[in-house]
């Protein structure tokens, strides 16, 4: 369960270009919720993701994961609860290390590193099995440096790494945006299979309205650092792409009038 309460974060405080990225944002996800986060550029989506992962500290407000207050917890300590796949395939993996080593690193999210042998035979077998679900043949390339993989393969690997150990919260930050349409579909399908099978509490940022309507059980639309719209269940099922786009244009009208 994830609970964000009155989150506020201001960039460049007191400067002429001061920007309120999160303006009292509150949000609660129940265990197993699959929330699709939408919103125009600058709405605060990435800031919210960074706040949940710990990459960015809040000025005010609090974040609770499964009832525990993680507001002041640094990224590496929060990693036990939160896994993340970034938009950039380069960010989620260590390029100069092998596929198996990267999988090992992901495993250490749950079990902090100790002074014992890393890649044991048993572990390699487990990794082989987990990677085989992707159907990309990565299971036969465990000792290949990740730098030799394509963007899609790297992103698929990042996904497998993120869902391994079943994190309390899975953050997907436009994780298919940098991929070609076919690869994007492949990664998205793998994501859906994993999230459904493991019942992961997930937040997925996307700019694809059709995806927002089709997947997940909730839609959360951010605007100016707040939740502008929340749809779930019946409402979500009835919503259409033009409905969602409509909310975007309301905002730009307001921007025009305000200017």
């Amino acid at each position, binding site marked *: 369960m994830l609970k964000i309460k009155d989150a506020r974060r201001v960039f460049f405080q007191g400067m002429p270009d001061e920007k309120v990225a999160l303006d009292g944002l509150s949000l609660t996800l129940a265990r197993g919720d699959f929330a699709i986060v939408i919103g125009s550029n600058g709405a605060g989506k990435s800031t919210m993701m960074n706040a949940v992962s710990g990459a960015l500290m809040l000025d005010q407000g609090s974040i609770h994961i499964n009832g525990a207050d993680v507001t002041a917890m640094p*990224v590496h300590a929060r990693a*036990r609860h939160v896994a993340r796949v970034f938009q950039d395939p380069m*960010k989620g993996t260590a390029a100069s290390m092998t596929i198996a*080593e990267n999988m090992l690193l992901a495993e250490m999210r749950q079990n*902090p590193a100790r002074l014992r042998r890393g890649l044991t035979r048993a572990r390699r077998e487990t990794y082989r099995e987990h990677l085989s679900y992707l159907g990309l043949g990565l299971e036969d390339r465990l000792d290949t440096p990740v730098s030799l993989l394509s963007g899609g393969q790297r992103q698929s690997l990042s996904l497998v790494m993120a869902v391994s150990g079943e994190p309390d919260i899975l953050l997907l930050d436009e994780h298919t945006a940098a991929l070609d349409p076919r690869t994007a579909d492949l990664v998205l399908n793998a994501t859906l299979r994993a999230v459904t099978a493991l019942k992961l509490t997930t937040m997925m940022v996307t700019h694809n309205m059709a995806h927002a309507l089709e997947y997940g059980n909730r839609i959360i639309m951010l605007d100016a650092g707040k939740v502008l719209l929340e749809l779930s269940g019946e409402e979500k099922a009835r919503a259409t792409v033009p409905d969602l786009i409509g909310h975007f244009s309301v905002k730009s009208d307001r921007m025009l009038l305000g200017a």
Partner: protein
Amino acid sequence: MDILNAWIALIPVTLAQSLILSFVVLAVMLPFRILSFPDLTSEGSYPLGGCVCAVALIAGVPPLPALLIAATAGFLAGCATAFIHLRFRIHTLLAGILITTMLYSINLRIMGKANQPIFSEPKVYDWLSPLSLSASWTKIVLVGVLALVTYLVLNLWFTTERGTAMRAVGANSDMAEAQGINVWRATIGGIGLAGAFSAFGGGLMVQSQGFADVNMGLGVLINALAALMIGEAILGRTTLRRQLAAPFVGAVVYYQLISVCLAAGLPPGDLKIATGVFVLVMLAAPTMGFRRRNAGTPAKESFRE
């Protein structure tokens, strides 16, 4: 022929020296290649190790504990560099220069003078006196074994969970952090370890030459870098084992090249330009069409700022 004979005559001396300095090359390689933290602290931690070792010996500490005390001092120096980089966001190179500069004064304070002879104190090399080898071969055997053990232990370390975590910090520190690795601890520990190796090398050198000098670090960094480049050009960087072996192989080959230059009658003052040319050739070779086979795709260089 004269050159050849002169060179062969120099081999034991230069081999002993190069094995000792291979610890400094290792201390340059670890931050630079494994932690993506280009670091100049070795230039200061090497004489620090020497001075601390000399003072400890004078105080009656046995030779091995003296070396370990020296390594501890180097460890702290490395930690200091890593800390001021992490905490104050000072560029790694600048952080190393600052610590090196301050270490010069600290080294003078530790010894109380610029030069400290330790001719009559016991040395680690005395252990092998029952073998009745020549002075140089004693050093070669002892330091060679130490280097081999260090290489094997590092190989093991970097395949443990913690060692893998440390490498991840160098490969992609944001990603490592997101996987629950404490980047501060790994960086400080890793740079500290490099400082310890450098100071250990300083201690070995002091026990070998029989004196410590505050200026003994002058230029050691560029020599170490040259040796590293040569080692990497010979072995490549495709696997962890090769990367870890490069400092040792590089140190031996580099000092033999220098020795050839000396044997050929090159005045010592011209050695710096020879060193520069070696490094330049090693760095330029890949762009001039002498690509190594099996070199694989070089990992993109990205260093922390």
